[in-house]
């Protein structure tokens, strides 16, 4: 993989001054692995957080580059609620290792969405995460944790699952690969 990534770097270098832009379809790597689904079970009056962690591999050699921006340009999930009434919000965390995502500052917060009974509620997940995670995206490996935080103000548990349907991260670098 390293050699292939280096070949990509050669292309970037050979193509002169400019930006290297990576549109990474993170969802495509999550799809079908189970990591695209976050089951939730929220007892009454007990806020609960459940998470899924995904590794993102980026081309090496951009350690000296300047990260212009990191944005989630396309992102969506379905809240497939199967019972109860409450709210579900999403938070995204990034770190250089899996464990670090549990202590990292929040990069993106998607406000809570209300769910009730048996229904599917779409949620849009987009936003600019520059600044919080710039240095991470100069590395070869970044871990992303998607946390679903739920509240339950009712008398019965809120159950269901958050199913990711799209997630594309756009990283814009001023390429300095020497």
């Amino acid at each position, binding site marked *: 993989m390293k050699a292939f990534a280096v070949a990509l770097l050669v292309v970037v270098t050979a*193509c002169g001054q*400019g930006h290297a832009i990576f549109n990474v379809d993170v969802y495509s790597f999550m799809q079908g692995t189970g990591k695209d689904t976050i089951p939730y079970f929220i007892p009454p009056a007990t806020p609960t957080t459940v998470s899924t962690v995904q590794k993102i591999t980026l081309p090496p050699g951009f350690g000296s580059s300047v990260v212009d921006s990191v944005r989630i340009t396309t992102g969506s999930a379905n809240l497939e609620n199967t019972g109860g009434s409450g709210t579900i919000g999403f938070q995204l965390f990034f770190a250089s290792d899996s464990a670090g995502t549990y202590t990292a500052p929040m990069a993106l917060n998607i406000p809570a969405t209300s769910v009730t009974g048996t229904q599917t509620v779409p949620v849009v997940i987009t936003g600019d995460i520059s600044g919080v995670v710039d240095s991470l995206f100069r590395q070869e490996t970044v871990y992303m944790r998607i946390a679903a935080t739920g509240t339950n103000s009712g008398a019965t548990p809120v159950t269901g699952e958050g199913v990711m349907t799209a997630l594309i991260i756009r990283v814009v670098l001023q390429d300095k690969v020497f």
Partner: protein
Amino acid sequence: MRTGVVILGVVALALVVPRPVHAQFSLDARHIGMAGVSLGRDGSARRYNPAYRAVKNRSGGPGQARATIPIPLGLITFFQDHPPTHWGDDPMFNPDSAAFNPIELMNLVLNPPLFYELKQAPTPTNDIEFTIGKNQLILNLGKSRVLIPEQKFGLGMNGRLLDLGFGVGGVHFGVMGFMNYEIEVALDTALRRVLRDTVGVQPDSTYRILTDAVAQTGFMPTISFAHRLTHGKGAVGADSIENADDGLYIGGAVHYYLGATYARGVGPAGFTVGNPIFGAAPGVLLDARAQTSNKPFGTGVGGDVGVAWISGPFEVGFGINDLGAELTWSDTKIQRIQYDSAGDSISVTMTANHVETKTKLPISYLANAAIRMGTGTTVGGDVFNAGRHTVIHVGVEQRWGPFALRGGVARDQRKKMQFGFGAGIRMGSFGLDAGVFTHSNSLGDTRAMTLATSISVY
């Protein structure tokens, strides 16, 4: 430190690269104004056609300068924009700078800034976009797609860098330097479409690039003989039959090649992807062979032959060079360069050492013709091939007393039409000439236009 390495590299490349574009890149504004054609009997004619050693120089005559001194207007602009004292911080030379652009640097090498650039070829500066998914890989090179060749891409040069010696009668003893490099790169159709047409990489596919590169240099002690076989009746401007150039000339030269060093690399490279594309790490394909000389003095023998015929205002010449030039390198090492998928690394293994290998120099030829009319008009052309694409120049010069107007067209190594025009004025023993020419010496498809100026000494 790295800046120094870059500058050193630029200087080294500058010594090497301009030679293949010699026909387009001349220091004489008169040649440039005629799109590269030379109507005089300058050093190039003698270097590539030994028969011209028996032809008298017409120096001092109309349009035949003894020497040419270029006026480097381009250097003034260049050093204003890039003061040497700031090269360490100059994005042009400093790889640490975010604005450093290797294409711009390469274009500088290909176009030494001696003359004034009326229109510079644009340097690709744009965003390169990669779309990466588990089953998706799309490379959008933007404007830089023009750098991807549509067909097999080759760079080559077979040049004679110096010609020193002396003559006794028709025999000439001398030494020439030679430099030859050939780089051929072929992308398979699938890879070309990925890079040039922004077509996505397909699952279960292989993408290849095939490279064959050789470089060799050295010098060659030479003995040549040239003789005037027949004498004609006279020539325009000649004051007597004895002083006329008319006649048939033949020449031949034998070279003993002494190669200083050589290197050759041959091999396919590429990558293969599975289904889905990033289901597993793409496989890297690399299995190349490298040959390098351990010691100098690869030896060989070759020769040139040439003929020239002058009749009144007409003149034609034809020379063939490096016939049978094969160099034997007695001490060579051969290495195999492979990609090791297990270690995700490149391994270099010695296949053979201290073995004999051979290289060839490509046969080159120069054909030239000119007609000098009594009305002050001279028309000429040449065809030059140094083992790669043929370069053709056609030019005309019209003189009215001290004034001259020039124009010409050329087909360059990239098979592109180029144009030149210019003018000059002669004042006694000196002349001032200016020539404008188009060229495609930059990486990219856009033509540039350069103004050359020079002083001629008659």
